[in-house]
C-alpha cells in the first residue's frame, strides 16, 4: 500500500532544481518528435544550440524574443499569486499595442519627448482595462475569470482586425490590414547597432526587479500573497480582498499591455493582427516555470525564448517543423507541474510512516 504525504520541509535545492530539471527533461522529450520526423536529435540539438549562442546576433534575437515574454510572464505570475486566473494576457497585449499605434502614429500633436512616455502609459492603461472588466464580472457576478478572459482574447483579436480595416488602417498601407507606423520619437530606442533588441528589455527588467521587491517586501505584496493563499482568512484578517484583486488585475493587465507596446514601439513599428504568436499564453508557461517569482520570470523567459529562436534556426537548417518549439514549451509546463509535485510531496509505503501520524 503506498501513500502520498506532504514533505515536512521543502529544500531550497528542490525549489531551484525542479524548473531547471523540467526544462531539461522537456528538451530531452523533444527527441521523440525529432526522430518521428526522421531527424537526428543530436544534430538537431547542436543546430538549436548554434542558433542561440552561435553569434552575438543570434543571442540578441533571444533577448528580443524574451522581452514580451518577460512582460506576459510577470502578468501571469502576479495574477496567479493572488489566485486571479488571468488567461487573457494575449488579448491585453493587443489592447496595449492598439493604444500604442493609436497614440503613436501622429494622430495627437504631442511634442517629441512626451510621446514615448505617453505611449507606454496609455498602452499599460489599455491592457489594465482589459483585465479590470473580467475582474468586475468575477467580483460582482461570480463569473469565472478563466472563461471570461479566454473568451475576451477572441473578442479583442476580432476587434483588432476591425480597427485595422477601419480607423487604424494605414492610408499608405497599399490595402494591407496594418496600422500606420509609430513616429520615430515614439519608438523605444534600439540597444545595439544593427540588431533588433530594444530598450523594451530594460523596461521589462526594471519592472521584474520592482515586482520582486514589492512582492517580497511591501505591505501590498503581503496582502496579495495572503489573498492568494487563503482569501477567506485574508478577509477575516481585515484585508479588502476585492480591492487587492482589482489592484493586481490592473498591474497584471498593464504588464500584458506593455508587452504589446514593446512589440509595436520597440520591434515592429506598426500593428498587424498577427503581432503575437501566442506570447500571452506562453507567458503562463514562463510564470509557472519561474515558480511565480518575478526574477524567475526573467530566467524562464530567456529559456523559452532560446527554445523558440533555436528551434526556428534548427527548422531552417533541417526542415523539421518549427512547431517543435511549441511542443517543448508545452511539455516543460507539464514537466514543471509534475516536478512541483515531487518537491512538495513524497510517496511512502504505509507502515513505514512515523508512529505519530
Amino acid at each position, binding site marked *: 500500500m503506498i*501513500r*502520498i*504525504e506532504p514533505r515536512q520541509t521543502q529544500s531550497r535545492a528542490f525549489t531551484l532544481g525542479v524548473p531547471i530539471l523540467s526544462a531539461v527533461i522537456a528538451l530531452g522529450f523533444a527527441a521523440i*518528435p525529432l526522430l*518521428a*520526423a526522421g531527424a537526428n536529435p543530436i544534430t538537431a540539438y547542436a543546430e538549436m544550440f548554434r542558433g542561440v549562442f552561435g553569434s552575438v546576433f543570434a543571442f540578441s534575437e533571444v533577448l528580443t524574443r524574451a522581452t514580451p515574454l518577460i512582460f506576459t510572464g510577470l502578468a501571469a505570475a502576479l495574477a496567479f499569486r493572488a489566485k486571479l*486566473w488571468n*488567461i487573457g494576457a494575449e488579448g491585453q497585449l493587443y489592447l496595449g499595442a492598439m493604444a500604442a499605434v493609436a497614440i503613436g502614429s501622429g494622430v495627437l500633436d504631442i511634442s517629441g519627448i512626451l510621446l514615448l512616455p505617453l505611449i507606454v502609459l496609455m498602452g499599460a492603461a489599455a491592457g489594465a482595462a482589459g483585465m479590470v472588466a473580467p475582474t468586475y*464580472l468575477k467580483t460582482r*457576478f*461570480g*463569473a*469565472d475569470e*478563466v*472563461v*471570461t478572459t*479566454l*473568451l*475576451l*482574447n*477572441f*473578442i479583442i483579436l*476580432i*476587434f483588432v*482586425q*476591425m480597427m485595422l*480595416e*477601419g480607423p487604424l488602417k494605414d492610408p499608405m498601407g497599399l490595402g494591407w490590414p496594418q496600422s500606420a507606423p509609430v513616429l520615430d520619437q515614439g519608438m523605444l530606442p534600439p540597444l545595439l547597432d544593427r540588431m533588433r533588441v530594444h530598450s523594451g528589455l530594460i523596461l521589462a527588467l526594471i519592472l521584474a526587479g520592482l515586482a520582486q521587491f514589492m512582492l517580497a517586501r511591501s505591505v501590498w505584496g503581503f496582502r496579495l500573497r495572503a489573498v492568494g493563499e487563503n482569501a477567506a482568512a485574508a478577509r477575516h484578517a481585515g484585508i479588502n480582498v476585492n480591492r487587492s484583486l482589482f489592484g493586481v488585475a490592473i498591474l497584471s493587465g498593464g504588464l500584458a499591455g506593455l508587452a504589446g507596446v514593446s512589440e509595436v514601439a520597440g520591434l515592429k513599428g506598426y500593428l498587424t493582427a498577427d503581432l503575437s504568436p501566442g506570447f500571452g*499564453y506562453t507567458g*503562463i*508557461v514562463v510564470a*509557472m516555470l519561474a515558480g511565480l517569482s518575478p526574477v524567475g520570470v526573467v530566467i524562464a523567459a530567456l529559456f523559452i525564448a532560446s527554445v523558440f529562436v533555436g528551434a526556428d534556426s534548427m527548422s531552417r537548417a533541417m*526542415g*523539421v*517543423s518549427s*512547431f*517543435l518549439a*511549441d*511542443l517543448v*514549451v*508545452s*511539455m516543460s*509546463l*507539464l514537466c514543471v*507541474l*509534475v516536478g*512541483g*509535485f515531487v518537491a512538495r510531496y513524497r510517496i511512502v509505503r*504505509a507502515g513505514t510512516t512515523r508512529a505519530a501520524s
Partner: protein
Amino acid sequence: MMDILNILLSESFWAASLRIATPLIFGVLGALICERAGVLNLGIEGIFVVGAMCGWMAVWLGAGLWGGVLVAALAGGFFGLLHAILTVPLGLSQHVSGLGITLFATSASYYTYRTALPNVSSPPRIEPFQPLDLPVLSDLPFLGSVLFQQTALTWLALLLVVVVWYVLNRTALGVAIKAVGDNPDSVDAQGLSVYGLRIGAIVVGSALMALGGAFLTMSAFDAFFFGMVNGRGWVCIALVIFASWRPGKALLGALLFGAFDALQVRLQTEVGALVPGQVFLMVPYVLSIIALVIAARSADYPRALLTPWFKGQR
C-alpha cells in the same frame, strides 16, 4: 423585423443551427462529465484540435469515416488520461494542467500535421459524412428537412445527450460519478474508488470532446486547418455553467448558441453594409460571456469541483 421572422421560420435556418450546435453538444457533454466528477478540464480546446486532426488524418490514411471517429475518440481519451493522472492521483492544479494539455495537444497536432504534410499549402480533402437521407421521414414537412439534412455525427451527438442523461440520473454509475464530484469522502467510505471514477469520467469526457473536433473536419468541413477550432472549446466551458451541469440544459444551451450564430450569419447579409462584419464574428463569444454572467450566481456547482482528494487524508 419581417426579415428576422422569415429567417426564424425557415427550415434552412434551423438546420444550420443544429449543425453549428453539434460540435458544442459533444464538447459540453464531455466537459459536463469531467466536471460532474469534480475535475475541470481546460484541455478541451486542445482536445478539440486533436480530435479534428486525428479523425481527419485517419480517414485520409484510409481508416474509413467511422474508423476516423474511433481514432479521434481514442486520441482524445489519451490526452484526457494525461490530464487525469496529473489532476487526480497527483492532485495538481486543474487550471494549469488543463491549459498545459491544451498547449501540448495543440502543438502535438500541428507538429504531426506539418511533419506528415511538409510542403502543402492546402490540406488534402476527404469525403466527409453525408446527410442521412431517410426515405419517408425526410419528406416530413419542416422537421424532415431540419433533422434529416444532418449527418450521422449530429445524430450521434443527440443520442449521446440521452445516454449521458440516462447514465447520470438513472444508473448507479451516474450516482457514483455525481457523488465523487460532490463529496468524494462519501464515495470512498462506500468502498468505491474515487481515483477510478474520476479518471474514468475524464477519459470518457475527453473522448467526447475529441468527437466535437472530429465533427469539424469530417462533417462540417472536409479537411484540417490551423486555428479551425477557434475557441469552441472555451465556449463549451461557459455553456456547462450556463447549463448548470445538466445534459438537457446543455443541449438547449448549445442549440440556442447555434441559433444565435446562424442568425448572425444571416443578419450579416441583410445589414452587412451598415455594420462591419467583425461585429457579427464577436457575437458568439460575447453571448458566451453573457450566458456565464447570467448563470454564475445561481449555478449549482459540483461541490468538490477543483478540489483534489487524496486517499487516506481527510
